[in-house]
């Protein structure tokens, strides 16, 4: 049986304490929310934090409320199942609700949290393997700093893949993320939380705690999410298209955000497609053109399930279908 390495388990009662413990232990400490990403990784010895800080007893992370201005604020510890069944979400955030439903399996959604999914580790078929398997390739640079990247052996960087279903759509929606640090709270745009590196894929400081995500108030925009994977359950996206379009009253697109998940180390903007959309109405021709323009940014690598070239070739189809869902 795969078992967890030993660690000291902390259960702070508020965010300030949690951050304090994390700061105190530095690199030895990791937060755990639902545990569905961290514990498998620990069992495979990807991470072996000596201090695990559970957020289960931090009440402010469990709340969910519609703010006075209509925005929806969701605590990081809200489980994916709770979100999935939240009527307000289904009614006003269909694209995001769909993305949540697409995450893994119902059992893992019962345990996994929105905060955990937003911070999901990047994935790679040379990395997400047992310790013994990785031992047999002398590990890769995501496991061991002096090792190579096996998917691109000449590369100075890690190409592990952004694999969260919620990230592309919340980035496209321009949701806001609240972080608690030693100096208090700060709020950033979702896009700003991520960067293009398979190892250091987050911009936040290690001890900074993701406390809340705030979705924009319902309005003249519509978001969608479309996921490519082998099976309709379990699998991570090998392409996850998050799209959000803002419409003028006459249907003209005022702003367009398209993010491609599963196609790089962060949810990459399909800028050329976005440009084509803005100032126009969402016709079938425009959708096809915007889809076609997404082929180039889809920077697929041969480190996920399904064929690398195929994933790139069907990206336009998926982008087009995601846009269609915004109609």
């Amino acid at each position, binding site marked *: *049986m*795969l*078992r967890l390495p030993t660690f000291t388990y902390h259960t702070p009662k508020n965010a300030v304490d949690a951050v304090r413990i994390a700061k105190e232990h530095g690199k030895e400490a990791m937060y755990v929310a639902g545990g569905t990403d961290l514990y498998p990784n620990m069992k495979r010895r990807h991470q072996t934090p000596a201090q695990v800080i559970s957020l289960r007893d931090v009440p402010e992370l469990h709340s969910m409320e519609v703010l006075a201005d209509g925005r929806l604020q969701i605590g990081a510890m809200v489980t994916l199942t709770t979100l999935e069944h939240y009527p307000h979400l289904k009614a006003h955030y269909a694209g995001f609700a769909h993305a949540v439903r697409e995450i893994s399996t119902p059992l893992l959604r019962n345990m996994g949290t929105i905060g955990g999914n937003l911070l999901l580790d990047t994935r790679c*078929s040379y990395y997400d*393997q*047992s310790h*013994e*398997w990785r*031992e*047999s*390739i002398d590990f890769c640079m995501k496991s061991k700093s002096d090792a190579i990247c*096996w998917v691109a*052996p000449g590369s100075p960087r890690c190409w592990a893949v952004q694999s969260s279903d919620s990230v592309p759509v919340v980035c496209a929606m321009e949701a806001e993320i609240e972080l608690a640090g030693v100096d208090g709270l700060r709020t950033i745009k979702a896009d700003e939380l991520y960067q293009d590196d398979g190892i250091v894929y987050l911009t936040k400081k290690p001890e900074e705690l993701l406390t809340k995500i705030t979705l924009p108030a319902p309005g003249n925009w519509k978001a969608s999410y479309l996921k490519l994977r*082998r*099976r*309709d*359950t*379990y*699998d991570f996206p090998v392409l996850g298209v998050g799209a959000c379009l803002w419409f003028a009253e006459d249907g003209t697109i005022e702003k367009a955000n398209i993010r491609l998940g599963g196609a790089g180390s962060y949810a990459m903007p399909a800028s050329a497609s976005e440009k084509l959309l803005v100032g126009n109405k969402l016709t079938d021709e425009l959708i096809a053109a915007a889809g076609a323009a997404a082929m180039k940014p889809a920077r697929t690598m041969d480190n996920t*399930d*399904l*064929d690398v*070239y*195929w994933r790139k*070739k*069907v990206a336009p*189809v998926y982008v087009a279908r995601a846009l269609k869902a915004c109609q």
Partner: protein
Amino acid sequence: MVLDDPSTRDPSSPEARNDAPWQHDKKKDELEHIGKPIRKVDARSKVSGLTQFADDLTMPRMLHMKLLRSTMAHAEITHLDISKAEALPGVKGILTGKDMPTPFGILPVSQDEHALCPDHVRFVGDPIVAIAATEEEAAWDACRLVDVDYRELRTIGSVQEAAANDEPRLHDYGVRGNIHRLENLEFGDMEDGFKRADHTREDTFWFEGNTHLPMEQHASLAHFDKDGKLTIWSSTQTPHYLHRALARVLHPLPANRIRVIATPNGGGFGGKSDPFNHEICAAKMSMLTGRPVKVALTREEVFWCHRGRHPVLMRSKIGVSKTGRITALDFHSFLDGGAYGSYGTASTFYTGALQTVTYAVENYHFRGARFFTNKAPCGPKRGHGTVQPRFALEVQLDKVACDLGIDPAKLRLDNLAPRESVTANYLRIGSMGLGACIEKVVEGSGWNERRGKKEVTKDGRIRGLGIACSSYLSGAGLPIYWNGMPHSGVQLQLDRSGLCTVFCGSTDIGQGSDSVLGWIVGEVLGINPLDIKVVTSDTDLTPVDLGSYSSRVTVMTGNAAMQAAERARDIVAKGVAKKLEVPAGRLVFAEGRVFDAQEPDTGMTFMEAVGVAEAQVGTIGTVGSYTPPKSAAKFRGGGVGPSPSYSYSATVVEVEVDPETGIYSVPKVWMAHDIGRALNAAVAMGQIEGSIYMGLGEAMMEEMAYRDRSHKGQRVFLHKIPSMLEMPDCVTYVIEDPDKNGPFGAKEVGQGPLLPIMPAVANAVFDAVGVRVDENPISFEKVFAAMQAKHEGKEPRFGPAADETGIPDVNFGESLKIKTPWQGGDGTAWNEPKRTKKAKK
């Protein structure tokens, strides 16, 4: 059930073994329990969580063992230092290759494995050191402290590489270089066959390997006890073969001091049919430490045990008449065997054996080659070796039908192998219900109305229907090691309490073999199967049964159980006849009673009847055994393929293909299976539906995927299996064409229905979007690539190069030439050198 007249047979005669009345001609309404949807004997414990699998067992002072496995795909071990591991607190025992120098293997011709590699590692995962400690974590940690130095050797990663490189050699046996086996069998006159063909075509197919993935990871608990006897509880499908391997490696410990208990298998599918390193190491470790030792493999290690579907490259040349009659079939198979022999010799023959059993093949030439490569060893997976060629043949027939403009279902119906016949390669067909199977699925699916219509769904996907058929054996005609003893034995004990206990060496892997014993004995003795006590798979207590493989259990243990039960019934009947003063032939055993057929009120309960008989003859115990009928094939290599009977399956699969991406789904499957007789239709349905599921997994996604990106060679990447969301609606038809060799006419059902699924999916994709995928799995990417090729005006196909490119250059030598039965052949090869007859043990 009405008693047969016992005077017509003498159960004590040795001949009775094979001509006992298997009651295949009994009418359904004459049967009390057979065919009824009775609960399995172990159902209650399984739904209560009370079934104890191997890893559920614990013992006082038990140690936990882990194996350190090779990180190299191919290397010599130059240095091994266990001193740091020995020093770790909690470590109680360490074994290395030198502790178990005797090699073993499932087949006598391939004794090529070591419990721990002494000096040569052949794949990533090959075990080197075993460490037992008080906690599993300490054993794992200790493994990480072992220093191993390797001298790397060039890796062999494919059949092409193996054919081209004799050095470095993986093994010092086999044909030559890295060729493990070469077979070359020719039946009839190929030249004439192709000359008489109106149409000939040649195709190349590739079937990627895949693995069983049972939900239970293999586990074993070994205990060398105070009496100097060894007991091992293990999740094995073949306790008898494990017993033999243990006796061999642990010599001088005699076999009669070794007890193997097969725990209920949490899924097997062929993956637990070999004796494994971890089993032997646990036994040896318990002898070394004097403590119980448990080993429970991780999922990664289960992948390394593998023994799954061989990757096979196939080239098939077929000649047909205008009506699709197969005048000649020339079939080549090239098997990527992985690092060890395992069942590979049998696998190689099986890629050529059953092509002739579904449709009549007038002339047939089979050439098969198996190669050693530096990958986890391949072996038997559900449908063992016959799955890959079935894919090739059924897709090729679909193309033939297309070429000739004949409906693929009609082409198959018109060319069925005749029932009660002998095939070109001397397989004896008994009952044959394939025609009925085809008719059922054609009717049920609306084949005639819907095929070729390219219906479009609301969301723009295109529908297609594909058909395919298959056949499978009900147990191998020959045992794995040469001997003249029965393949299956059953012992029965009747007690004055009315209890009937059945002892049999068979192993329940979920297919219901324990229940089969209960149903058959219950039917013969007229008692409730759930009242019967079934004791199985314990080499100390139960007569030998060879194991749960090759779909042999229902037919072989069933016949043995029937014989034992009939003998018991005869004893009881004699006693009751005397007591009631009624002729024994008039007695009926039913509803828990023994009574006079003419005066049903004259009788007694079964319990009383046993008491009456016990008073007259003493303690009641009987035995039954079964040996399959002699094969018609007498040529070398003719031992693989013969079976007491063959099951038949036909399927129609519906697909919906997204023309923009190649992504397809399978919304519905119609499957008809000729089972001979369903001993329990509900349980048989479960086997059919499970086969559909596993077949669809193989068709859509499952592959033992390796990538050779590094100098270090091959390692398993991923193996996706379908979830319940991929499982289609199924319409299942249980076709009953009783076979005289089966108990109550029963044939196999556990493997056969898997075979036609993959080719039916490929054929359905063609029906939908007009492209051929000559490669399994038929994954989305391949459908897409074939559609792109079509779009670009190229051949609308995805698969291995259609010509000779990529076909390994292998000299198969001269073929063994065998005249077909219709040429007046007698089953021998006319050019075979005289074989010296091996003495039977």
